[in-house]
């Protein structure tokens, strides 16, 4: 597939903090006595594919909700796409994309209608939407299916389309929450090719997954245990540090230390 769009994203976005798309400093979220996210500090660079791993209940979802402007932190600092998570959370929402396995597209709208709907929400002009819709349809080889209902598409195609819709408005950063769950192995790899293309065009990718082979495809990986980030490095760096032959082994070594069970 050819990379045919996203030229805008090549120039450093306004408010980009020295190439850092996410900065988090002791970011914390408490629910009553329970500390879901416990003083996490990390940075994500522009164009990086950042793997965000952790066992169920380690605090990943809560952390992602804070970073996407949906949940107020209890304490600590963070900026996303150059905006403050406390004061500028509405601006954050406009500058990110989001896709999950569970929520993606409207089944009873056509492919074209879904694209128009989401791009419209992000305030894109009719011309932009019209031109780019053709590019995306071509890229996904879906030109002849454009006016079919999304529910008629096989799951793998839905997921690839959902990803293209999530980055249609050319966000600085896209959050992918288990994007490949339940997807067949061939489509899973095609999906990662789309992720690589997006990253190469300057979109930063923040991704969670339960497939440990996918952790290997990330530029850097963080592993959350009991609300903390217990490890953060390149996949090869992590394997070296934990004297492990695979990311699966690294994950098991770290996650088995967990005290809390969700």
């Amino acid at each position, binding site marked *: 597939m050819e990379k045919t769009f996203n030229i805008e994203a090549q120039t450093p976005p306004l408010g980009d903090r020295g190439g850092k798309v996410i900065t988090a400093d002791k970011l914390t979220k408490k629910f009553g006595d329970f500390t879901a996210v416990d003083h996490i500090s990390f940075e994500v660079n522009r164009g990086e594919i950042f793997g965000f791993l952790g*066992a169920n209940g380690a605090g990943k979802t809560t952390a992602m909700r804070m970073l996407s402007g949906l949940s107020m932190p209890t304490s600590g600092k963070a900026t996303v796409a150059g905006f403050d998570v406390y004061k500028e959370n509405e601006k954050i929402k406009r500058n990110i994309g989001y896709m999950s396995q569970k929520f993606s597209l409207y089944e009873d709208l056509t492919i074209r209608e879904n694209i128009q709907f989401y791009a419209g929400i992000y305030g894109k002009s009719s011309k932009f939407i019209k031109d780019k819709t053709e590019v995306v349809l071509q890229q996904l080889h879906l030109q002849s299916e454009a006016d079919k209902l999304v529910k008629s598409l096989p799951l793998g195609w839905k997921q690839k389309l959902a990803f293209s819709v999530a980055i249609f408005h050319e966000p600085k950063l896209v959050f992918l929450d288990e994007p490949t769950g339940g997807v*067949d192995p*061939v*489509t899973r790899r095609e999906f990662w090719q789309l992720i690589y293309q997006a990253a190469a065009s300057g979109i930063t990718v923040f991704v969670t997954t339960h497939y440990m082979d996918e952790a290997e*495809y990330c530029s850097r990986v963080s592993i959350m245990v009991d609300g903390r980030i217990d490890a953060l490095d390149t996949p090869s760096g992590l394997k070296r540090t934990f004297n492990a032959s695979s990311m699966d082994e690294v994950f098991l070594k770290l996650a088995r230390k967990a005290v809390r069970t969700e």
Partner: protein
Amino acid sequence: MSSVVVNNIIKTYGKKKEVTALHGVSFDVKQGELFGIIGPDGAGKTSLFRILTTLLLADEGTATVDGFDVVKDFKAIRKRVGYMPGRFSLYQDLTVQENLEFFATVFNTTIEENYDLVKEIYSQIEPFKDRRAGKLSGGMKQKLALSCALIHRPSVLFLDEPTTGVDAVSRKEFWEMLKRLKEQGITILVSTPYMDEAGMCDRVALMQSGKILSIDTPQGIVSTFGKKLLAAKSDNMLQLLNDLKLCTQVEDAYPFGEYHHAVMKNDGEAELKQFLQKKGYTFELKETAPNIEDCFMQLMKLKPSGEEHK
């Protein structure tokens, strides 16, 4: 002796039968076997389980569970199977203990009578027995659902994607639990989208778009791969993947975790090495053993469904 026999089951959905979920599926499961049905979403796993647990009627074909026909003898089957659906389906407003008591009572038994069977699993959530099921964490819900599916001592247990969305550590623990249940003589059918779980089963059926691609032991499936498989790695993995695809000796190349896998047409290792050396970067190339995922992809490409991959 076969515990489950499935013979040419066809299932369609829609007014005009426009969606075919199962295209004539046949297999059998031996008594006491841990049998895995492995495939992505849309493979037909849930339709198959619902037919075998008498909750759905097939369009064509026959099936028996424990010797009973899934249509004529549905009442007998319901008494002797345990079913854990993919979606959590216990009573959210009942406590942990009330849920288990409810299921025991429905099957005319008591927790005490079969406690030994569920003890290992249930004891882990027993400290929370007064908590409402809706307030449990994902892992605890899963353990309660399994306890409820077991409390009437079923002879066949159907588990529909018990590990989907579950992290790697909990998945391993769940499979260890299943291995111990198998020792009690229960036949277990379990479906999963995770290829790496195949190795935990006695035999597996690989499924895709309503068809079975292959049925065998995990070792048996791997032994049918029949091609030389190489693993390659370099500093520029994207470039390497493109180069692998360009080499005429390579039939197929795809990312596989830390390495790329290259399925060779013939031997061709020396030629590939030469080919890559000319590209002028350092790389590592070694022979590797195929696993279930390599086999699944090979089978998918051999038998394209016409739907998933245009």
